[in-house]
C-alpha cells in the first residue's frame, strides 16, 4: 500500500473518529447541563396525575422528560441548549410539535418541517404538562376561531399579500431569509397551524396580535392559506414551483430555445464540411449584389 492510498483510507477514518468523539462530548455535556438545574431545583414540583383541559399531565410529563428535557430542562425552565418554555402558551407548544420542528433532528439555525414525532393525543399531553407549569401565552384556537364558513377569502388574500408574502412569497412556496433562516413553505399547513403561527410568531416570524389582525381577518388569511394557496385547480399547465420568473427563464432558455435549436439541427444541414470539397449546392457571386443570381 502506497502512502497516498494509506492516506486516502486513514484521513476519512480519522475524521469519522473525531466527529464521533466530538458528538459524545457535546451530548454528554448537554445531559449534564440539562440535568443539573432540575436537581438543584426541587421547588418545581409537578402536579402529578392531574388532567388539564388539553390532556394528561402525567403522560405529558413522561414524554417531555424523554424527548424535551435534555435541552429545555426537566421543568421546561430552559438551559444553555434550549429556551424556557414557561408561559409560552399552548399554541406555541402545539405548533412546534405538530409541524415536526421539535424535537430537533439536528441543531440548525432554524428547525425544518418534518413529520411530527408525536401523535395528536401525545402532543396535547405535552401541552397539558408544559402549560400546567406556568400560565400565560396563546391558547390553542377553539373550533369557532377556525370556522372558515363566513371568512372573507379575498380580504385574507389581500392581508396575506401585505403581511405574509414578503417572506413566505406570494405563492406560499417559502424562501430563504438572511443568516440561515428561512420562511417555510405554506403548502399543506393546517388551519390550526396558521392560527398558532400568526399569533405566536415562531422563530424569526413576528407575532401578530388581535389588534393587528382581527379574529375575522385571521380567519380570512387562514381560509386563503389552507384552501387557495395551493390552487388545486390552477390552470395553465405544469407549475414551476411558484418561485418567480427565474424558473420560467430556465425553462424558456433550455427547453424552449433548446427545442428550437434541436429543430434547427434536425432540419438544417449538418454534414461535415471541412473535407467535403466538391459537394452539391449552387454558386452565386457575392460581388453581384441583387443582380447576380444565376442558376
Amino acid at each position, binding site marked *: 500500500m502506497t502512502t497516498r492510498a494509506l492516506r486516502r483510507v486513514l484521513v476519512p477514518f480519522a475524521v469519522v473518529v473525531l466527529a464521533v468523539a466530538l458528538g459524545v462530548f457535546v451530548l454528554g455535556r448537554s445531559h449534564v447541563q440539562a440535568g443539573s438545574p432540575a436537581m438543584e431545583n426541587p421547588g418545581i414540583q409537578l402536579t402529578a396525575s392531574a388532567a388539564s383541559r388539553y390532556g394528561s399531565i402525567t403522560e405529558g410529563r413522561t414524554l417531555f422528560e424523554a424527548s424535551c428535557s435534555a435541552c429545555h430542562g426537566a421543568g421546561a425552565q430552559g438551559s444553555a441548549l434550549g429556551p424556557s418554555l414557561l408561559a409560552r402558551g399552548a399554541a406555541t407548544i402545539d405548533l412546534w410539535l405538530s409541524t415536526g420542528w421539535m424535537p430537533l433532528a439536528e441543531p440548525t439555525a432554524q428547525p425544518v418541517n418534518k413529520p411530527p414525532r408525536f401523535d395528536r393525543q401525545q402532543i396535547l399531553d405535552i401541552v397539558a404538562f408544559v402549560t400546567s407549569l406556568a400560565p400565560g401565552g396563546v391558547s390553542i384556537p377553539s373550533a369557532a376561531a377556525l370556522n372558515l364558513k363566513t371568512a372573507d377569502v379575498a380580504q385574507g388574500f389581500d392581508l396575506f399579500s401585505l403581511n405574509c408574502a414578503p417572506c413566505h412569497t*406570494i405563492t406560499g412556496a417559502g424562501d430563504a431569509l438572511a443568516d440561515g433562516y428561512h420562511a417555510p413553505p405554506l403548502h399543506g399547513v393546517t388551519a390550526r397551524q396558521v392560527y398558532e403561527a400568526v399569533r405566536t410568531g415562531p422563530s424569526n416570524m413576528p407575532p401578530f396580535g388581535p389588534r393587528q389582525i382581527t379574529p375575522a381577518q385571521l380567519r380570512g388569511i387562514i381560509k386563503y392559506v389552507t384552501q387557495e394557496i395551493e390552487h388545486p385547480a390552477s390552470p395553465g399547465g405544469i407549475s414551476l414551483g411558484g418561485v418567480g420568473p427565474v424558473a420560467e427563464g430556465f425553462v424558456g432558455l433550455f427547453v424552449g430555445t433548446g427545442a428550437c435549436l434541436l429543430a434547427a439541427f434536425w432540419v438544417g444541414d449538418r454534414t461535415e464540411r471541412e473535407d467535403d470539397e466538391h459537394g452539391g449546392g449552387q454558386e452565386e457571386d457575392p460581388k453581384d449584389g441583387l443582380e447576380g443570381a444565376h442558376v
Partner: protein
Amino acid sequence: MIDAVYGWLDDRLNISGSGRKLVNKIFPDHWSFMLGEIALYSFVILLATGVFLSLYFIPSSKQIVYTGSYVPLRGLHVSEAYASTIALSFNVRAGLLMRQMHHWSANIFLGAIVVHMCRVFFTSGFRRPRELNWIIGVNLLILAIFNGFLGYSLPDDLISGTGIRISFSILESIPFVGSYLATFLFGGQFPGSAIIPRFFIIHVLILPAIIAGLLGAHLALIVRNKHTQFRGRGATEKNVVGAPLWPTFFAKTNGFLFLVAAVTAILGAAVQINPIWLYGPYVPYHVSYAVQPDWYMGWLDGALRIMPSWEIHLPGHMVPNAFFPAILLPGVTFTLLMAWPFVEQRITGDRLEHHLLERPRDRPHHTALGAATLSFYFVLFGASATDVLANYLSVSLNFVLWFFRIAIFVVPLVIYPMTLKICRELQHTPGGGKTKRHNIVLRSPEGGYSTVVSQARPGDEPPVLEPVPLDGPELVGAMATGADRRSSGPLGAAATGQGGGVAGASRARGVFRIPRSYR
C-alpha cells in the same frame, strides 16, 4: 388559374424580373444559420398572439372592484389592466393559451437572439462588410429586451409592479437627469396612472414597429452582403454555395416556422408561465419575496443583488448605488457589443472583407473571450435567484450572495483558459469534435472475437491539407485570407513545411498584423 393571376400581376408589377432574382437567391445551408430564424418566427408568433391579446386587454390603471370569476380576488380593488388580464385568461376561449404562448415566445425570442448573436460572434461573422448588420442586431437585442420588460409589466400584477418600481428607481439613479427622466416617463411620481397606457402603446406599437423595421433592414443587408458560409463544398470568398430560396430554402424555412410554433404552442399549453392570479394586483406597499424579472432582464437583477452598497458622494450630488449595476453595466455591455467589430479590427489590424466564417477553434482567444463573457452574464443571471437557490440548497442566503460575488470574477477567469485549451486541442486533433467511427465487434464461428473499425463516412478522415503559396499575388487581395490564416496555424504550418514553413507563416502573420496574443 394561378398562372393567369401571376400573369396579370406580372404585367402590372413586372414581378418576374426582380422576383426571379430573389427566388434564385442562394442561401448557404448549415443548421447554425437557422438560429436567427427562430427569433424571426418567434417575432411572427409574438405579433399574432399579441394582436389576439390586445383585443381583450384594457390598458388602464383605473381602480375597479374585481367581480369576475376568480373567487379569491372578488371584492378586491384592482386595476382594469389586471382585471382584464385575469378575464382574458379565464373567460376568453384560448385566452390563457394565447397569453402563455405570447410569454413563452418572448422568452424563446430573446433566447434565440442571444444564441444567434453567439453564432455570429464565435464564427466571426460580424467582420467587414457586415459590421453594420451586427450593430443592427445588437439594437434589435436591446429593443427586444425593453419590449419584453414592458410586456411583462402590463398585467399590473404584484411582481411586475415591483419591477416597474425598481425601474423607476433605476431611472432616478442616473446622475443629474435621472429624476427628470423618471417623472417624464411616468408622468409624475410613482406609480401614477399614466404608466400602463404609456407602456401599452410603446409595447404594442412603437417598439414593434421599430423592431420590424430593423428586422427588415437586418434581412435586406443579408441579401445585400450575401450570407456568410463555412469552408468546404467549394465555398470561397468569392462565391456563395447553398440552396436557392425557391423551392429548397423556402420549404425548409417554412417547415421550421411550424416547428418553432409547435415548440411555443406545446410550452404554452403544458407549462404555466406568469400565473398572475396567484400574485394578485399590484399595491405599491405590498411586496413578495422570490420574485425576479424574466430571464433576459435577470442578469440586471442579479447585478443589482450582488452589488455592494457603494455610493458616490459628489459635492451637492449623490450617485446612488443602483446606477452602477443597472445603468452603467448595461451601458458598457451594449456599447462594447456594438463597437466590437471595430475594436477587433484595431486589435487584429484585419480590415479586409470576409465572407468565409472561421471555426471557433481557429480563433482560440476570440472564442475564449466570448465564452468568458457569456459566463459572466450567466453568473449574473444565476445571481438573480440568490434567495431561491439558498432555499432549495438549504444554505445561508449570505453564503449564496458571497458565492456569486466571488464567482462573477472567478468563473470567467476559469472559463477563458479552459476554452482556450479546448480550442487549441481541437486544432491539433484531426477530425476533432467530429463523430468518432464505431468499433464493430465480430464473433467468429469458432467463438473468437475481433474488432474492426466501421466503414469511413465522408468527413471521417483527417483533412488533406494542400500547400498554400504564400508569396502569390492573390495574397494581397481579399481572397486568400481564410486559407492563409489557417496556414499559420499548427496544421497549416505543417502543410506548408516543404515550402519554407516557419518563415512563410510568420510573414503571413505580418500581412494581417495579427498580434500573437489574439491568435
